[in-house]
């Protein structure tokens, strides 16, 4: 019997939450990125103890385990690349408690990120990280990948809002890191180590999140530019003018057209670039900042500037922004989504390089993203059935990474490395840099049970986007 361990799993997990049929296994073989890998079993965990038991069994039997939220990952985080068990935590959402007096939220791993936003809002509080998929994604997935989102510009990313975790270690032991206080220097900061470790160092089973007071007022500006490079320049300028927007998002012409085709949000489609800016703070201060921003944008060559009066109008614009990523596949079915990040001053340079790469490789390259923090989303829209085109895509992706690193930036601002970017890790970190990370992994997970095949490249591994 090949899978004796599945029989052993049956003892640990209720029938309805241990899935092994071909239909179920195929349904957990993919995520929002690339490729499909078949697991042998899916466990829908509902308690810390269950996770611990599964990991202990997995260690005994040498079975890989892949933690998974709602599978919206753009980097292959939850893909079961070496078979084994997908550990689905998306249905484990019993706890979402807000403690206004401590300004924290305590959440189960499967809680949907936007539910935290909503619940915090009821207490006039805010949980700032807001990835575009926040209405779908689980908090555990956000924690594992250290997700960002538009508000990263002013408020930082997921790791800046986590003060405590309950974690099941790869060997199945239960630990607590951090706590419920803002300040905590007791020992190594394991909380930060776990956040963004892509499910390779532990399974997060509960998190204590820091909340902040909700800004009194929020306003949005929409600014258009004739060229992408001009828009990039304006972003850099604006950020050094003593105004601190909460969001600053860039959309190029192709993304504008795609979104308008999906839902007529009223975005212009005849400009090369659009910047959405959000300012927040005290209403009186805001009024002045809006005026300053408008004046500055005019000086920087903006074509049109509009400031929606009604919150619903502004909301519509931001919803349109959230749709860009999935909407851009209207031309061709395959999307290779990158999220390189460069220092803010290098945004115009990066824009120029992207345009150059688009031309040289003759690809449908769309650029949008959280330009305010230098986190751009160059997306290549292609057809994975077209091998010749995919080869060009592979080369273009490599060049995009090289450009970002050369400009002092990074491979990934918020999507994570997973399977998609591991071949390029050495380019940014150097051999010793990777080696130090590997040593941490080795110490935590000696049998390489948790999420194997991610982040670290196999010897000679290259980016391959062709499946044959």
């Amino acid at each position, binding site marked *: 019997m090949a899978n004796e361990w599945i029989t052993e799993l049956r003892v640990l997990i209720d029938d309805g939450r241990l899935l092994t049929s071909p*239909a179920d296994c195929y349904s957990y073989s993919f995520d929002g990125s690339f490729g499909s890998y078949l697991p042998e079993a899916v466990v829908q965990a509902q308690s810390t103890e269950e996770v611990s038991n599964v990991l202990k069994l997995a260690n005994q039997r040498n079975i890989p385990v892949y933690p998974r939220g*709602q599978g919206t990952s753009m980097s292959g985080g939850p893909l079961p690349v070496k078979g084994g068990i997908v550990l689905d935590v998306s249905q484990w959402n019993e706890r979402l408690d807000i403690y206004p007096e401590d300004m924290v939220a305590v959440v189960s791993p499967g809680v949907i990120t936007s539910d935290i936003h909503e619940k915090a809002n009821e207490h006039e509080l805010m949980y700032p990280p807001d990835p575009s998929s926040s209405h*779908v994604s689980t908090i555990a997935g956000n924690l594992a990948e250290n997700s960002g989102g538009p508000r990263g510009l002013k408020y930082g990313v997921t790791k800046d809002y986590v003060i405590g975790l309950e974690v099941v270690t790869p060997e199945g032991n239960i630990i607590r890191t951090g706590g419920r206080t803002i300040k905590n220097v007791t020992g190594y900061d394991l909380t930060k180590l776990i956040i963004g470790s892509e499910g390779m160092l532990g399974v997060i089973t509960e998190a204590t999140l820091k909340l902040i007071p909700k800004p009194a007022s929020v306003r949005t500006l929409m600014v258009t530019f004739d060229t992408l490079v001009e828009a990039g320049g304006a972003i850099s300028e604006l950020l050094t003018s003593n105004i601190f927007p909460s969001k600053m998002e860039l959309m190029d012409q192709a993304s504008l057209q795609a979104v308008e085709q999906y839902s007529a949000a009223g975005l212009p489609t005849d400009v090369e670039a659009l910047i959405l800016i959000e300012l927040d703070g005290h209403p009186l201060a805001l009024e002045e900042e809006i005026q300053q921003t408008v004046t500055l944008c005019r000086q920087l060559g903006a074509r049109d500037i509009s400031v929606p009066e009604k919150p619903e109008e502004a909301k519509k614009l931001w919803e349109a922004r959230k749709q860009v*990523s999935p909407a851009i596949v209207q031309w061709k*079915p395959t999307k290779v989504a990158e999220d390189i990040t460069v220092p803010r001053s290098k945004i115009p340079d990066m824009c120029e390089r992207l345009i150059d790469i688009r031309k040289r490789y003759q690809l449908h390259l769309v650029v949008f993203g959280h330009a305010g923090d230098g986190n751009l989303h160059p997306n290549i829209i292609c057809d994975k059935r077209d091998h010749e085109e995919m080869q060009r895509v592979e080369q273009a992706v490599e060049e995009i990474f090289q450009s970002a690193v050369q400009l002092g930036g990074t491979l990934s601002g918020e999507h994570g490395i997973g399977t998609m970017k591991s071949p390029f890790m050495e380019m940014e970190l150097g051999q010793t840099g990777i080696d130090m990370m590997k040593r941490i992994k080795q110490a935590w997970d000696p049998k390489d049970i948790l999420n194997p095949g991610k982040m670290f490249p196999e010897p000679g591994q290259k980016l391959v986007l062709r499946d044959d």
Partner: protein
Amino acid sequence: MTDLNELQEKINYPKTFDCVQCGYCLPACPTYETMQTETHSPRGRINLVKMLGEGKIGVEDIQEPIEKCLGCRACETACPSNVEYGQILEGAKQVIEEQKKQGKVKQQVEKALFNHMFPSRKWMDAAGHLTWLYQKSGLQTLAQLTDLTKIAPLQLGTFEKVLPKAASPTERKATPSFLPAKGKRLARVGFMSGCIMDSLFHSTNQRTIELLSIAGAEVVLPKNQTCCGALHAHSGKREAARQLAQRNIQAFEEAEVDYVVNNAGGCGAMLAEYDHLFEGEPSWDARAKVFVEKSIDVSALLHQLNYLEFTREIDEVVTYQPSCHMLHVQKVLQEPVELLSKIPGLEYREMNKKDRCCGSAGIYNVVHYEDSMSILNNKMANMKQTQAAAVITTNPGCLLQMKLGIQRAGLQDKVRVVHLVDLLMEAAPQPGKTPLN
């Protein structure tokens, strides 16, 4: 290999590539919410169909997840990549249908009739109509009920309580085939009477015709019209649906109307997609497209004609449960609510998650009773919050399902379920003095 190619064509395999697996459909899917696995999500089902097309899994593997799909198409509204889920679903259903064993069908129909229907007077009534339906459509509508045997004995009693009294064939025959506009003549419309609507909701049909004539429409009921074919298409009987569509297209062409009006969200959605049935048949495709252009839900047409005035106050709190197919396929969103807002005295309270399917979904509630009731329970929780005294619907299936939900919650003395048309008629509509547009 050719087998696989043929299969790929049937299941619309190339369309599965449109899905980028972003997961934005997950929060919109009622079965993902209640069944809690990717396998029962839109993204999961699309992937399974794709895997079938690649020969990685068999038809038997996709059967359960596909059959458990409500077909509400809420995922299409949520999808930013414009995946044509409806077509992928129906392709998969066709393949499943073809693989089901033929021989047992007759036996099962008989079993359903003799063991479960005949003992019940009300079901005998209904069965009479189904026989009529069968004759009217000339096809195996009755065979849709074969699956009844799986669950029938326990649950038929439940549905019996909410079934309205059906109109007799004589009553149906008394329906006029033409009604002039009461006031100004603003349009000539053909009325699609439907099967279920025409039997179980005959009086609603009568009122629809009257309401249309008050609203400025001259109404024609083409005699040769037939069942819209929705139940056939949704259960994988594409060829049958195609033939019904041809008969309807022809019947309404001959009637020379400006609009083809229906009052059942599910039928309307089928009519709005008739062109999908004729891909690769240019002459029929063109005729179907003209038909599709003319097809419209009664609420959308009334809103467009904008000629009604309501003269009687209705002092009631109401909420609206949209038909999924009206919302997600026909994209009729605001019109019913705007019509409600014109009734003097009426207070409309929006239901939380009103866009969510009620679990009726054609014959889903009969075939997959338990799953349907889980979905209905969620719906009822939101319904109760509104404290409405009436639930307004625009589709017969939804109407019966909501009635069932209200009965299960013991609210039958407090809450009624009404078709939008019936409520509008209660408000004593009159032709307007001047049409506003």
